[in-house]
């Protein structure tokens, strides 16, 4: 007993004598994930880069019904048809508007995540090659986000390091400075990303070509036209890249159809898996019913994320009646548009004016690509099997809430739409979505667009090069040659060099890129938002103001940044 007591005594004394080093208290995460050990090897970095892909996809495609489409609403090509006229732009584009702050936030989230990837590289265990590769990927995404921010807001705070402590005193860089950063990032990406044709690249991944395509666009925005030509040419001259000119892919034998139609059919967007598409540059991956795939077929659209372009862009054909009888069964997976609800209607300019030069030969205006005539699919209607033409509606045609419809006037119930948003036919939609109640009958949960989506496509690269050539003053001849390559693929008559100007190129972009292009970026980078709204879209024209060429800095951001003044754009 005495011995034990003595031992205890000694132990007690010892604990008083020895103490550990201060760093002993620092936790080293060995068996759990923490901010310290999250970025060590390439799979750690891949996880973050995958998240960057997700953030881009969410912001531009799959977040919900509205936010991604705001890059198309309030432009020259489309308007929100159920809303009251005229549009309330003062409200929607005010500094307090959530439309403005949501996109600001989402784009800066991409910046922050990209910066994290870049800043964590030096302390990682990546090989020298991988370090370059991940830095290139990080910088590509950072450039993509900053280019988007600079187009929409002009000069914005420029942050190029991971933010590790709260900071409240940001100031705006100039637009020029932001472009300079973007160009620097993209040049690094061009030098270090793999080529699109390389075997190491997977479908949907960014490549040298994607970086050069974006670089060309930003050079144009920055007024460096000859550099823009060079960057675009680098994409165009890549061996193995070419416009698709013959029918291809999953539905190439079907009629009606053509090569332009084939570009947007399911499974046809990716370069590698099967379709042989040589035109795609950056394809946003949408996979049905797999985790992270951003498309579901098993429950209602409302309960999961997906790209709701079909829902938003196809008309609410259900509401059409002729003398009290509905000529259409809705929702049907055919050229009536699937399960559209009629929100995003094309402007009259998109419907009529852009196609006037060659309405018949241009396959992009064929009814299977841009539907103007809707074939009645309801056997109970006297019109069954005949075409209901938007431009020539039968007398007695009524639409939503019994409103009398006028030919050639877009209403929620009927307007021409682009079939890029849907996949007609008995196996166009995922098989879960068919009810079997009548031919091609869809469930109420349909409404997503299930095809992969082009964010960059070679046809656009040609149009960018044409823009750059025009800007370089080397004008019309070279520009017309590029435009005519794109037009020739669609069997459209060539444009004469003398007719090419920036408005012509913007029109050609409508014809070629329709609802696929995030139009707001294009108009804002050119500073032509106001002009084009006035020219093309009466729905917004009476409410448009010059200062809307830049959006306001969100009021909430100005307030949160209490340590410095974040200046507001003029006019707000």
């Amino acid at each position, binding site marked *: 007993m005495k011995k034990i007591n003595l031992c205890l005594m000694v132990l007690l004394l010892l604990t008083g004598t020895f103490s550990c080093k201060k760093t002993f208290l620092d936790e080293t995460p060995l068996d759990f994930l923490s901010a310290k050990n999250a970025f060590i090897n390439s799979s750690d970095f891949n996880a973050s880069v995958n998240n960057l892909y997700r953030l881009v996809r969410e912001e531009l495609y799959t977040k919900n019904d509205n936010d991604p489409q705001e890059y198309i609403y309030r432009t020259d090509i489309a308007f*929100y048809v*159920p*809303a*009251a006229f005229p*549009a*309330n732009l*003062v*409200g*929607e584009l*005010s*500094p*307090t*508007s959530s439309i403005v*702050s949501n996109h*600001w*936030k989402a784009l*800066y*989230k991409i*910046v*922050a*995540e990209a*910066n994290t990837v870049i800043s964590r590289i030096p302390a990682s265990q990546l090989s020298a090659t991988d370090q370059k590769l991940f830095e290139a990927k990080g910088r590509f995404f950072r450039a993509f986000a900053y280019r988007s921010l600079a187009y929409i807001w002009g000069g*914005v*705070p420029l*942050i190029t390091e991971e*933010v590790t402590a*709260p*900071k*409240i*005193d*940001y100031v705006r860089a100039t637009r020029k400075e932001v472009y300079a950063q973007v160009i620097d990032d993209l040049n690094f990406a061009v030098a270090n990303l793999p080529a699109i044709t390389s075997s190491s690249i997977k479908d949907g991944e960014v490549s040298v070509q994607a970086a050069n395509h974006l670089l060309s666009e930003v050079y144009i925005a920055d007024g460096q036209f000859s550099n823009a030509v060079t960057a675009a040419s680098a994409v165009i001259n890549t061996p193995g890249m070419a416009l698709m000119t013959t029918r291809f892919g999953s539905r190439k034998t079907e009629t009606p159809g053509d090569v332009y139609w084939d570009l947007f059919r399911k499974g046809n967007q990716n370069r590698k898996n099967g379709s042989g598409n040589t035109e795609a540059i950056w394809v946003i991956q949408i996979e049905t019913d797999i985790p992270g795939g951003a498309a579901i077929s098993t429950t209602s659209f409302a309960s999961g994320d997906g790209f709701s372009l079909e829902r938003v862009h196809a008309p609410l054909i259900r509401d059409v009646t002729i003398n009290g009888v509905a000529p259409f069964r809705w929702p049907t997976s055919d050229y009536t548009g699937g399960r559209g609800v009629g929100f995003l209607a094309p402007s009259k300019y998109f419907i009529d004016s852009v196609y006037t030069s060659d309405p018949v030969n241009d396959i992009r205006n064929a009814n299977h690509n841009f539907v103007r005539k809707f074939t009645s699919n309801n056997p109970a209607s006297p019109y069954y099997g005949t075409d209901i033409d938007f431009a020539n509606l039968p007398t007695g045609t009524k639409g939503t809430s019994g409103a009398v419809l006028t030919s050639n006037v877009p209403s929620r119930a009927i307007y021409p739409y682009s079939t890029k948003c849907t996949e007609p036919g008995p196996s166009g939609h995922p098989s879960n979505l068919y009810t079997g109640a009548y031919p091609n009958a869809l469930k109420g949960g349909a409404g997503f667009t299930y095809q992969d989506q082009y964010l960059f496509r070679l046809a656009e690269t040609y149009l960018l090069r044409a823009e750059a050539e025009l800007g370089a003053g080397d004008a019309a001849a070279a520009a017309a040659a590029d435009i005519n390559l794109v037009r020739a693929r669609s069997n459209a008559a060539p444009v004469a060099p003398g007719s090419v100007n920036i408005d012509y190129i913007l029109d050609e972009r409508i014809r070629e890129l329709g609802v696929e292009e995030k139009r707001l970026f294009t108009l804002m980078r050119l500073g032509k938002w106001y002009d084009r709204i006035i020219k093309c879209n009466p729905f917004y024209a009476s409410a448009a103001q010059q200062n809307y060429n830049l959006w306001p800095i*969100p*009021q*909430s*951001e*100005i*307030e*949160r*940044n*209490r*340590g*410095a003044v*974040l200046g507001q754009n003029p006019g707000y």
Partner: protein
Amino acid sequence: MYDVTIPSATGFDVISTNVGKINNKGFEAAVTYKVIDQKNFKWSTTLNYWANTNKIKSLTGVDADGDGIEDDLVSSGLFIGRSIQTIFNYQADGIYQIGETMLPGFQTGSYRVIDQDKSGTITAADRTFLGKQEPAYRFSWYNSFSYKNFAISVFINSIQGGKDGYLGNNTRIYFRDDNAVRNNELNGVNYWSPRNPTGEYPRIISGNHSTVEPNVYKDRSFIRLQDVSLSYTLPAGVLSKIKAQSINVYVSAKNLATWTNWKGWDPEALYPVFVNGNTVNVPDGLAVDGRPALRAIIFGVHINY
């Protein structure tokens, strides 16, 4: 600890921080008085009173804008000299009627927002202090009576906001989507429409939004008859015949009546919503999936052998 807002340019919205100093003052009292205490008739009454106020004394300790006064955290809704749950927001003043001249960015049937700085447009400078969410005081009053074999108890509970306290966001959504139709909101809620110019809530619209669509705060003060019970104990003579030690017959009721001006479900209840990445509990207004206070009436017999 408080979730303080930071610029979204950081990639984040808030950071949980130790911030500021707060002064809390409270008062609580309970009084029980036996009003009548006789053999056959007893009446006891208990009054409870509670009041608590808090005031922010300092926040960051920084004067970044250089006006000589320590800065408020406006975007976090924290202001020196005011309570934590102060409401700083736009002030609605009725609804724009047809033909009325409106401020730019507003439309007929939307809330008329008061242009506090008289600038002719509604900007962030038009926000003002509307009150606070904390109650001014609460009280409860318990009475029990017994007369021979009968016993009655009555419990009344109340939370009061006083002049500008205990406010809750009582805004009704005004986006007319198909769910709004399915939920029968157009019938259930007194929305403004050209045919209903006295409607209390803004026009339910699809698409167009006004520059500012303010939250409207309403007083949640209420008085509730929370518990009432009546019981009767059988006299000993009856018991001996059926060989029971005691038999008690009673009826009790919970939440029989609530007197309040609050629009919606139970004024006291909170339900969780997701704001800025955090779950916060907000008062239960005219929410589709709200729950009323449970009203229960219980009959019972208590027998001991």
